[in-house]
């Protein structure tokens, strides 16, 4: 898509998709900056076992509520656990979960949206169901699902994905509805192409750009929701460090040791900021219809 919008310089072979993408990233300071920050954050969490000098669960009763020092770079929590390693492992969990949630909710939303947009009889019932789910505040739906299913990875991913699916389904449906009126799609249908092939070859490609953009926003929302669930005491069990639960555990000691709340908070904020800024920049590039709204 993006290659066609760039001026073609010569008769030589068109630049590869990868090179086009790379030049676009390098030319946009916001995209480059947010991508670098995001890669840095992912790198430090992936490298958590190497970077963290201490086991995130190791208790050191002598070193409780210590501010940052050479031994404990970000200080310790109320049980004397190293905050740096807890934050890194927590970040790792957030990022993994967010990636899973994005993949699952995009896949489900795509499937539902294609069905609603393409099969006329399914449209009304599916979209009313989506409206109903959207009317339930997402966090509350997630809270209820986690409360019933228990805080394991399957329930957590489902609980955070379900509230995101309707928005994606709506987006896909709107794209399908506009694309299916295009002459090339009508021609293809008229020529007797099987419905699945029409969807796959002619309709799905138009949904990719908006979906990529939407996936980044789902990612940011998922990181936040996981942290909020942890903060409310509804996240993973206490032995698994998550950014939200570290903050919740630091709450009672906030006046004496504010760093327990602030460091994971800063990490979380940077992570969400990087994803959101990358998403905004991506939207400006990939979705000219929407970019007007943010760049004019």
């Amino acid at each position, binding site marked *: 898509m993006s290659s066609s919008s760039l001026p073609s310089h010569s008769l030589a072979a068109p630049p590869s998709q990868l090179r086009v993408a790379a030049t676009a990233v390098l030319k946009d300071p916001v995209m480059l900056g947010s991508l670098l920050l995001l890669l840095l954050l992912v790198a430090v969490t992936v490298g958590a076992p190497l970077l963290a000098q201490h086991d995130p669960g190791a208790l050191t009763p002598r070193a409780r509520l210590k501010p940052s020092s050479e031994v404990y770079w970000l200080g310790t929590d109320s049980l004397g656990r190293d905050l740096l390693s807890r934050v890194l492992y927590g970040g790792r969990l957030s990022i993994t979960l967010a990636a899973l949630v994005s993949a699952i909710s995009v896949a489900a939303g795509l499937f539902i949206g294609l069905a609603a947009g393409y099969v006329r009889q399914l449209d009304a019932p599916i979209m009313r169901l989506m409206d*109903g789910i959207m*009317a339930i505040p997402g966090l509350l739906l997630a809270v209820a699902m986690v*409360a019933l299913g228990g805080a394991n990875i399957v329930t957590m991913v489902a609980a955070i994905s379900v509230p995101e699916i309707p928005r994606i389904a709506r987006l896909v449906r709107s794209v399908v509805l506009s694309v299916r009126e295009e002459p090339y799609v009508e021609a293809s249908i008229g020529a007797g192409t099987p419905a699945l092939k029409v969807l796959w070859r002619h309709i799905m490609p138009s949904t990719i750009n908006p979906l990529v953009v939407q996936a980044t926003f789902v990612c940011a929302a998922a990181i936040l929701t996981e942290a*909020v669930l942890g903060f409310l*005491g509804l996240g993973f069990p206490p032995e698994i460090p998550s950014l939200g639960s570290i903050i919740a555990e630091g709450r009672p000691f*906030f006046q004496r040791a504010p760093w327990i709340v602030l460091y994971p908070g800063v990490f979380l*904020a940077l992570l969400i900021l990087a994803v959101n800024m990358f998403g905004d920049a991506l939207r400006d590039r990939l979705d000219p219809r929407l970019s*007007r*709204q943010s760049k004019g």
Partner: protein
Amino acid sequence: MLEIILKRLLAAVPVMLIVATVVFLLLRLAPGDPARVIAGDMASEEAIAQIRTDMGLDQSIGTQYVRWMAALLQGDLGQSVQTRQSVASLIKARLGPTFSLAAWAILLTIAAAVPLGVLAAWRHRSITDRGIMAGAVLAFSVPAFVVGYLLILVFAVKLDWLPVQGYSPLADGVGEYAAHLVLPTVTLAMVFVALITRITRASMLDVLGEDFVRTARAKGVTERIVLFRHALRNAAIPIVTIVGVALTTLISGVVVTETIFNIAGVGRLIVDSVLARDYPVVQGTILFFSFIYVFINLMIDLAYVALDPRIRY
């Protein structure tokens, strides 16, 4: 007008029915025996059986569904397993703080976000515009509990200007009421201000490029009137729509904010009920919030007619 109201009301009915059905199914589709989940790990078989009969879980799913809907139609949101009080009365008892918090947050949002958005659009691509947009992305990204604790650290702990937490009802004096509400309101409104600023700016940018704005400027209308009377009025519909859609964000925010500041509101009720496995209260509270959401969006649909006389349903 009456016809419009009736039509919109009718359109809201299926959404509410679906919400009620989804909330009903949540408990029944959960893995395992819901009575056992509610009773907890330590419960005796008798206690589990008692809960099963109390909640009607021993009946067929069809019967349960009909009962649930029939009760809802009579305004019965169910009964707490723990305290035996009706969910409606539990919500009513905690509505005050939640309502104050939400109302002030919405007022603050409108007071801050609309002027900021208009300013950013007016000074499009200037330093001011970029500054406001950068601030909006930042405010949108920093989670409420981080903002809340920073505010507490600065204004309550270090400067000692405001109370650290809690809520003081209006009946106990305006000063205390306001002092307790400042930090929670700012915390809650933050994300909302960021969101509405962005939408206001986008919507204004669209409108400011229109012919009638150029005409107004050309005939010498002052810039303030062009912005606020000509442009903002036409930009209002997307803004109002997003305010309605973003209400779910606000409701989620209420839950978090009430937890940060230890405010005993409806948001906290839902978390406490989850922790106490009081599932009927969780269900009832979710329904309550969802109905409020549908109701306010219904009001917004009706407000369109007032904002734009061209709209007819």
